[in-house]
């Protein structure tokens, strides 16, 4: 059974706020699911199972160059923002 502190730690990392009721509920549900997933620990795996030797993997690159500005697209994106000021996205101070 995962502890309430563990649920709180996970919720904090995931930026989710939970009520006390929710914490208990997820504590139970996550325990059941994580217990099931524990079965994976029994699978025997070794170092060679890591993907490094797969020859088919290729990197896909493009030139790091600027795409022409699209004013209409910019307007659509700004319209989606919850709070703006002078065409800038407005956010709460970070520090």
């Amino acid at each position: 059974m995962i502890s309430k502190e563990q649920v709180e730690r996970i919720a904090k990392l995931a930026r989710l706020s939970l009520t006390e009721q929710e914490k208990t509920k997820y504590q139970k549900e996550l325990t059941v699911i994580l217990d099931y997933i524990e079965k994976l620990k029994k699978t025997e795996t070794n170092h060679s199972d890591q993907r490094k030797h797969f020859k088919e993997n290729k990197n896909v690159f493009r030139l790091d160059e600027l795409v022409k500005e699209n004013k209409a697209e910019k307007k659509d994106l700004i319209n989606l923002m919850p709070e703006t000021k002078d065409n800038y996205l407005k956010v709460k101070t970070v520090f």
Partner: protein
Amino acid sequence: MSLTKLNISQIHHGLKEKDFSVVELCQQYLTEIKKKNQDVFAYLFINQDSVLAKAKQIDQTISSGQDFSLLTGVPGAIKDNILIKGIPCTASSKSLENYIAPYNATVIERLNKENCLILGKTNLDEFAMGSSTENSFFGPTRNPFDLTRVAGGSSGGSAAAVAANLSAFSLGSDTGGSIRLPACFCGAVGLKPTYGAVSRYGLVAFASSLDQIGPITKTVQDAEIVFNAIKGKDEMDSTSVHLENNQTDFSINQLKIGVPKEYFVQGINPEIKKKIEQVIEKYQVKGALIKEISLPSAEQALSCYYIIACSEAATNLARYDGIKYGYSAIQQTEEKINNLLDIYLKSREKGFREEVKRRIMIGTYSLSAGYYQAYYLKAQKARNQIINNFNKVFEKVDLIIAPVSPVLPFKIGEKIENPLEMYLADIYTVSVNLAGLPAISMPCGQINNLPTGFQIIAKHFQEDKILKAAKFYEKH
């Protein structure tokens, strides 16, 4: 004449022969949707006004005598996690309830080039997380064969639309079975392409190494037509691949078909097992060689899938933070926002429903310091074993035939309180996504008037083999 019963090839023929116009076709579909969508709830959003205007336009093109493509004027439905510029894209979530897509997904650009008629957006489990469409913020889609039962998920709306004749084809997405399961539950054909065969640009990301967009249709040929229209390399998706035009020619008596022994041992409804045995017999009678193969414990694959999918989801859903778009606590007057953290916490608290929160937490746990080695890294190693196992199996056989679901479409509400039981519905589908393989779900009759289906799985980029084998079954 009921035009809504026609498949894509029949529509194309009818338009060419001038048996009916695109406007007539469109009107019949809109009438049918008005009649049935209340009960089935396949559609979240219907393109009512623009679609009739487009239909008129297409009719003019057709009457000008020019040649037109197979998909011209064909009405389709799009899962609401695929972006269509200018119309809502909600991913069935409150967090995107009022989000208007600012661009088209590549698959939409390609369908637009074909001059399809997009009727609207269909219902799904929130962020494609689920197997029944019961996790939708807007309510569940009901199975057209029995409205008290689920349509499957997460592409439930897409599958129900095709099954209820509310669209000629649909697009869905498949991360762990989300095209194949609802197609199976609704008696439709559902194709999950090889990972990389179809661009993911414009698909709301769930698990980036597993997601694929694919067609849900009435016939195999329709699935082939839609797949051909949307497949291929896209500069906007670096995981998409240039596809070779390989059309391997073979006859059924040259096929070696593998049947995974582990899948039929426990947990599967015995009537479903019997149906699939009858399917295999059809191929055997025509001379195909049937071989028993071994696929590693399906339970291990399910555990592996849930760790990887949830970890990738936790990362992909971090962007829904109420800052740049989507539901934001800053716009809610009743919320007390003191700082930036409050915006994150409150936007996500209200924006996501339970299943999404559950999966984000499982993913966060698996990736967190102290647990990463035991969970995520272990799952990656198990994934590679699964891939290697499939590679070995495909050295001995051309195709694998397997069940899609261990159960028949269940009642709405039956499994929703028990998340783990819901996860088990995916047991036969997830390893295909982990290995990036192509697979089709084919209907194979009914049990107690409920549809059931089987899967054909092939090696990477061998959709042509799957389609040919599926067509054979369809004909016989």
